[in-house]
């Protein structure tokens, strides 16, 4: 192949090897961190911290491995909107199911069991 000595591509951004390896290292460190954090009982912050670390990892993957930082802004918007709808779905379903838990008749005698 010709004319690629300057490591450029006419159609899309080329990710430097250094960045790829750096992100890879960061992801491994963060994976270690989340496992290490999980060995300590932080009570109700357990889940939040695990999610924060996972989100940081996800952002790294999206920005660098998926080229989102150098991509059209609109593609990023599309992706983020998708995630917002997931959050909408989860939050309303959790809100409602949480609210009716107290009214459930668990293991009541008249609940028909067929299996």
């Amino acid at each position, binding site marked *: 192949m010709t004319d690629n000595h300057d490591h450029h591509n006419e159609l899309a951004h080329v990710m430097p090897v250094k960045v790829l390896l750096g992100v890879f290292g960061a992801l491994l460190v963060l994976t270690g961190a989340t496992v290490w954090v999980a060995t300590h009982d932080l009570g109700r912050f357990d889940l939040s911290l695990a999610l924060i670390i996972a989100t940081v990892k996800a952002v790294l993957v999206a920005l660098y491995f998926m080229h989102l930082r150098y991509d059209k802004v*609109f593609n990023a918007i599309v992706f983020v909107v998708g995630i917002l709808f997931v959050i909408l779905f989860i939050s*309303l379903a959790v*809100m*409602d199911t949480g609210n009716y838990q107290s009214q459930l008749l668990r293991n009541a005698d008249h*609940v*028909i069991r067929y299996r």
Partner: protein
Amino acid sequence: MSSEAHVADGSAVHAEHETGENYLNCSHGLRSWLLTLDHKRIAVMYLAGLAGALFLGGIMALVVRLELWTGDGLVLSDDLYNHAFTLHGAIMTFLFIIPGIPAVFGNFALPLMLGAKDVAFPRLNLLSWYLWITGAVFAIVSMVVGAVDTGWTFYTPYSTQTSTQVINMTMGVFILGFSSIFTGLNFVVTIHKLRPAGMTWWRMPLMLWGLYATAIIQVLATPVLGITLLLLVAERALGVGIFDPSLGGDPLLYQHFFWFYSHPAVYIMILPAMGVISELISVHSRKTIFGYHAIALSSVAIAAFSFIVWGHHMFTAMSPMGNMIFSALTFSVSIPSAVKTFNWLATLYRGHIRLNAPMLYALAFIFLFGIGGLTGLFLGALATDIHLHDTYFVVAHFHFVMVGSTLIAFLGALHYWWPKMFGKAYDETLAKIACILVFIGFNVTFLPQFVLGTRGMPRRYHNFLPEFQGLHQASTVGAFILAIGLFLILVYLWKSLVSGKKVTVDNPWGGSSLEWLTTTPPPHYNFVGEPPEHDVYDYHDIRYDAAIDGYVLSKNEGDAAR
């Protein structure tokens, strides 16, 4: 879905400047159709498939209505009645109305209206059609080997207990879902990336805005239906304990899952219909659409709101907090819907209205959508819904929106684009008669059901008290009038295909969007040369030419409109 970048399909279609060559006759044989990547041919294949689905679903509807002639059954056993209404609902919803207008008229008109040569991913488009066919096969197989009796919603816990073909049917619907996703994805990408330089967002016909909003919902909501049905299959086949209460699952969670898709799906059904009506009203009033931006943005607003109101299907199941939130949010949808309706009415005002068949459908749409939309307010209001929930009021309401609006718009679109699609004219008098029959039949069928519902007739029961019989019989009579109207349409359209007068003019209605500025039927690559540029809803330079009985683009600025 990768690698759209292959050389075009091999069929030799280079010499389309030659007279008489169009997308229908540029290549021959069954293979050239079954392997076609041409969006127009795929649209025609969808039309054939959907007509079959409409016929099947319609037969089921007639069986249901016939059964309800008397209060203690006429032709069916209890179980068979459950099968009949489930198949009617499932076939009509998933095989006809949801693909409906986007699959047929979206596929046909979207690239043409945009000035593009095809949709973004032609092979994905063909795959959508094959997925539709596969889903349809699953549905029909489940019909033949034992049907389903859950209703089209497959609610748990009944759907995990019944011994009928739930897995077959849900797998069919799962596959149909992917057909819908890929169509929507194709449309979103096509509208974003394949617009020619002159076609800016605000120059797009409103049909395209409707299809765009629909496609957004298809992309965002339909995957949730997929996972819902997959979990239902897993629950039935294995017992994963997510929905099944006897295994520790939560059956109401299923309803959240189902309606997170299926409420937006209601707008998958209605938004393209609204797009069609915007075209019909403007073209046949010979008048610029009133409030273009408002109609365009209200489509997107409906798409957005559709995701925050799903809980109104669950008022008798949810927590009080959930009820309050969802009831309040539900009313938001009425705003963009009303914006559209008022703008259509304003477009009619002082227009040169032509009462031909497509326009009659458009007017019928406004009337029926008005009733369907307004009765929705009763159901969105928490207090009245507790009384009306699961009664015939709900049945009548959603039939007014789905049949009265979407099917009517489908028929309007069919009559509007028929000459362009096939280059054949249909019998206008018969078309008007059929339209009136459909309109009367529909109203006689469903207006009595509002009364039945408010008086307490529950849906999905085939036994009822004697006091309901009169209204039920009126409804059944209406259903048969509706069926006669639809059958009449089938007859004269078939006749038009076989022996109809040839339409040679590009622009029989005086439409201003680009599909009317190419030849009839369009060539394989949609336009000979570069696509023309023309302001949509600008009729001042589109002049009637009596010599050819069609409209021509008048270069002379001095010529009056019409």
